[in-house]
């Protein structure tokens, strides 16, 4: 455990030394928040819309921050593998999975910080969280888990391809996942059948639903259970993929 803490500390310090690796991601999330909130806020005036548009669009900014932050885990691993430091760490008595856990947990901390930052900006813009402080915390937890699910995916791609460009390209899978959903308007106002099908398949939809219910309408157990179940299921799947890839990469058999 101590080794993992040391390795997390090292990854966090490196992130601070290269702010350029996280700033664009924060900028994109804040951009979503400002541009869509001011440009599309009249959506909230449609009949039947509950809560504020800020509470509706904020999950998009949060998921974007979480998913972008998760890509960092893959990038860190690729850098370590490329410059040989990964091997140097494997030559210590450290449990081998710590070498992978370190950067992954570090990027989870970074992405959580980004999510909290985006949410604080939303509070400054006048957000009222319907489910209160505990609801706020649950949104952060959901974002963290969703980020970890993507960190697992990013680590899997990094360890399998060992190629920075390929791992970077793999993160573009995030885009359809964010946008093929009820991203900008509620379900009731979407008429395109294909988008409804895509949104139903897309797990992000359920994450958006859970977060929006907490932010805009209060406690909705069905939407929370579905959201957490989908998130945990997805995180478990990518976690297993990452562990499997890690075993190959650290044993090199």
């Amino acid at each position, binding site marked *: 455990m101590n*080794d993992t803490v*040391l390795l997390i500390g*090292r990854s966090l*310090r*490196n992130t601070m*030394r*290269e702010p350029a690796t996280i700033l664009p991601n924060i900028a994109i999330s804040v951009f979503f928040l400002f541009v869509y909130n001011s440009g599309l806020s009249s959506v909230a005036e449609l009949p039947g819309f509950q809560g504020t548009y800020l509470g509706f669009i904020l999950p998009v900014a949060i998921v974007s921050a979480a998913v972008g932050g998760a890509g960092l885990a893959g990038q860190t691993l690729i850098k*370590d593998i490329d*410059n*040989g*430091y*990964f*091997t*140097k*760490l*494997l*030559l*210590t*008595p*450290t449990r081998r999975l710590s070498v992978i856990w370190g950067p992954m947990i570090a990027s989870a901390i970074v992405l959580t910080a980004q999510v909290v930052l985006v949410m604080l900006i939303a509070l400054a813009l006048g957000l009222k969280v319907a489910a209160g402080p505990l609801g706020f915390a649950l949104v952060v937890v959901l974002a963290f888990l969703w980020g970890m699910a993507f960190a697992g995916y990013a680590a899997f791609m990094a360890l399998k391809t060992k190629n920075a460009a390929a791992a970077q390209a793999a993160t573009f899978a995030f885009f359809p996942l964010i946008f093929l959903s009820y991203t900008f308007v509620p379900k009731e106002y979407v008429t395109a059948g294909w988008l409804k099908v895509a949104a139903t398949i897309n797990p992000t939809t359920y994450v958006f639903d859970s977060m929006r219910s907490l932010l805009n309408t209060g406690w909705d157990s069905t939407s929370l259970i579905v959201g957490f179940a989908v998130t945990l299921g997805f995180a478990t799947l990518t976690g297993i993929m990452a562990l499997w890839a890690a075993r190959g990469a650290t*044993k*090199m*058999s």
Partner: protein
Amino acid sequence: MSDRDGADRSITAEALRRDFGKLHAVDGVDLEVPGGQIFGFLGPNGAGKSTLVKILTTILNPTSGRASVGGYDVQRQGGKVREAIGVALQDVGLDPLMTARELLMLQTELFGTPRDEARKTAERLLVTVGLDDVDPKKRAGAYSGGMKRRLDLALALVHDPRILFLDEPTTGLDPASRAAIWEEVRRLNDDFGMTIFLTTQYLEEADRLADQIAIINKGTIVAQGTPEELKRQVGDEVVELQFGSSDDAERAQDALAPVAPNRQRSNRELRLYFGRAAENVPELVRVLDGAGISLQGLTIEQPSLDDVFLRVTGEALEHEVDEGADDVPAGAEVRS
């Protein structure tokens, strides 16, 4: 040079093999390195040196066979092996964003040393490898090649390993850095009885440092022994003949077959191996005269590891040397 404190410092391998697809990178290697030795592992590029080092240091699994390092099995007791060994691979492994002290402290702590002590270890090792006067804020990414190599060596020493693996530690270094590494390797061996397993492409390096040498070619060990033993295998003395053209050298090679059965040619030079060279020189000159080949120069010297290498790796041997020469030691032939 046995183990000083009862700790096992040996390295053994039995029928070790590693395939990459169809390539047999390591093809049935047996090794027995007693504790406390400097063992030189010599071979051309791509001979399998680095693959073998990776297997022995637990970062690559063998396809078959077994190996033990410091008394521990490399596959089943990898953790124990890693505690016993220090490793500096051919490609240095440094995080470019970290400073030398940060890298050394983290590495030391990962070996279970408390922070305060790790700080002292870092300072001590920086002095050892001569990096103590570098700007402490300078990150490893900004170091020169030689400095990186020295820092990498320091990282291999953080836990006072019993056995040190150095994979081509001086490749690409300038002569001064190379000499500094040689001196350090000697000192580690003398002062701590550390077993040092060193791979190299430089014959001089192996000759200067190693108690024992193995030569690997195409995944197989083709010669093993002390430098002296290996040199004696090719003959006691060498006559080197220099010609004006490689054409002349080639004709001389054929013409001299009856009087010098053991010989190797490289370009315009022909090297002939004898028990006692001087007494053969008049005959050599006579034969060359008779064949009308003019000689540009002649020197008598001791065989070097170059001679051994050329002979066992087969590069020159396959084409240039008479087949009979392979199994007839030159010295024996002349003395009889």
